[in-house]
């Protein structure tokens, strides 16, 4: 299954790039299609293994009941959280409007 599926055409590469929010150039898409297919070929070896009855491992070091008290702790101040913002308006991160008319933001500075 791995071996058969492991080939990406150019439209699929472009689709994955959009899913990954990567605005790639035509050159990059061309190069990545070759590279990704070469890497995917390496994955085909896994198809040799019968893993039908094998349980997956998500965490290697088993830890049970890792709990802590549910208490409020001081976090970052608004100023500290916004200090690195490329664009801000008052106490907010500023982004282009997502809904409706992309006019002036209705936020008090």
């Amino acid at each position, binding site marked *: 299954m791995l071996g058969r599926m492991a080939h990406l055409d150019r439209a699929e590469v472009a689709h994955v790039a959009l899913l990954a929010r*990567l605005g790639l150039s035509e050159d990059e898409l061309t190069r990545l299609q070759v590279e990704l297919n070469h890497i995917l070929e390496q994955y085909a070896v896994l198809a040799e293994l019968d893993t039908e009855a094998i349980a997956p491992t998500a965490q290697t070091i088993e830890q049970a009941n890792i709990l802590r008290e549910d208490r409020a702790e001081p976090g970052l101040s608004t100023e500290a959280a916004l200090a*690195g913002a*490329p664009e801000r308006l008052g106490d907010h*991160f500023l982004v*282009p409007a997502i809904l409706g008319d992309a006019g002036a933001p209705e936020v008090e500075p």
Partner: protein
Amino acid sequence: MTGRPIDVTRWRAAQMAAALRAGECSSRELVEAHLARIRRQDHALHAWVSVDGEGAIASAEAADRRLAEARRAGPAALADLPPLLGLPLALKDLVVTRGQPSTAGSRILEGFVGPYDAHIAERLLAAGAVVLGKTNMDEFAMGSSTEHSAWGPTGNPWDLDRVPGGSSGGSAAAVAAFHVPLAIGTDTGGSIRQPAALTGVVGLKPTYGRVSRYGIIAFASSLDQIGPFGRDTRDAAMLLQAVAGRDERDATSSPHPVPDYATALPLDDEPAAVGLRGVRLGLPRQYFVAGMEAGVARCVREAVAALEAAGAEVVDVDLPHTDYGLATYYIIAPAEASANLARYDGIRYGYSARGGDVLANYLATRDGGFGAEVKRRVMLGTYALSAGYYDAFYLKAQKVRTLIKRDFDRAFESVDALVAPTSPTVAFRLGARLADPVAMYLSDACTLPVNVAGLPGLSVPCGLSEGLPVGLQFIGRPWDEGRLLGLGRAYEAITAGAPWRGVEPTALPVLDDPDAPSPAARLAAAQDERSFTA
């Protein structure tokens, strides 16, 4: 005293700590000597992304005040001081510290200043350690050569036309070139052990969960672990001691008790070597992989023979799923990376580009902010997790992960630890593997199964092949860092008289040449030559 003045940068961290307590030198003197070396040499080595000279001097002065106070109070107060007090060290450029830049080697974090301290930074600062700055790395720790840094590559102090390994190549090179005695790295598939091997220093990847990752810029969350670099096992143990243990802010950090790694290691060679008697070591057949250099295999076999001669029992063991490690790792790590790197949106911090609407801004920011290797892995990971492919890739890899872990579990039923090569080759030339991602990935064939299984691994120098360092890897059961360090210390003891032990990195004199080319210029020249001959 006549002759050459003492060069404090050549000391081990433990020697520096002793000299500070004896009043033979001050932390300020130590820190200034190391900063001077960095300023003089880093144009040719490029181990550092940022250096905080002013902050380091202030920390050193604070350490000197604590030392003076303890000296007045008496020997008991001196003995109670934290071992790292006043010692210079380096952090990999993915450890967030308050008020200082951390870029993880990526343009997308250009200009990012940490709003808080990582757990390990808090611990190190409380211990009085002096952070000189942040070291270069492959972007988001994705790579085995440090060539994938947005800020240009790092050189290998043994040969400046070669890579120092990666991704923690800056930390390894800084320790090897005497820019610092100690450095922090992270290891997701070999990123501490492989550069340690390629630069001739000691590097330890602890058990998954041994060190809190709070404040560490994430790559692959089920694999990442923080660990120390030093020029010997005792120094590495001292640094691990200072950062290991449970932290509530990282739910994967373990409450498993932290033993006293540092004082358990004998100072003298004779008692250290005695520790090998009766130890059962497994030599994994599958780790002598195709593509392994003969010189590396020879050094490792000689090291194994030395361990046997000193009383260790070495038996061949099988880790039958080793060959599946690479594919398993290169599904799991990119999948987790694609999720972790989704946070870089150009809205809250770091690099930000405009494309128009929100989606166009994301596309432009992430296209301009990420380098080629990061894009490759984010693409791979996104594909492997996408609808219809999850079972075929990610779930399959997690199942094979179970098989790889079982191999180790079975081996540890009959042996105390495994001994193996760290890297199949010595340091390779700048640019040699950049054009072929799969060749680069094979650099970690002997280290990444250890991360896949969550185990601790230690690399110690075991000789030179063609004048370049070779690393010997000890792999242990979970929480067996102490045993690994003991084995490494024993190996140091039985090879204390070996001729290669006294050899310093051979390119150190070149670093002092103010006209020496930067690693970026060397890489560009190598690539020109390659395209010319091709």
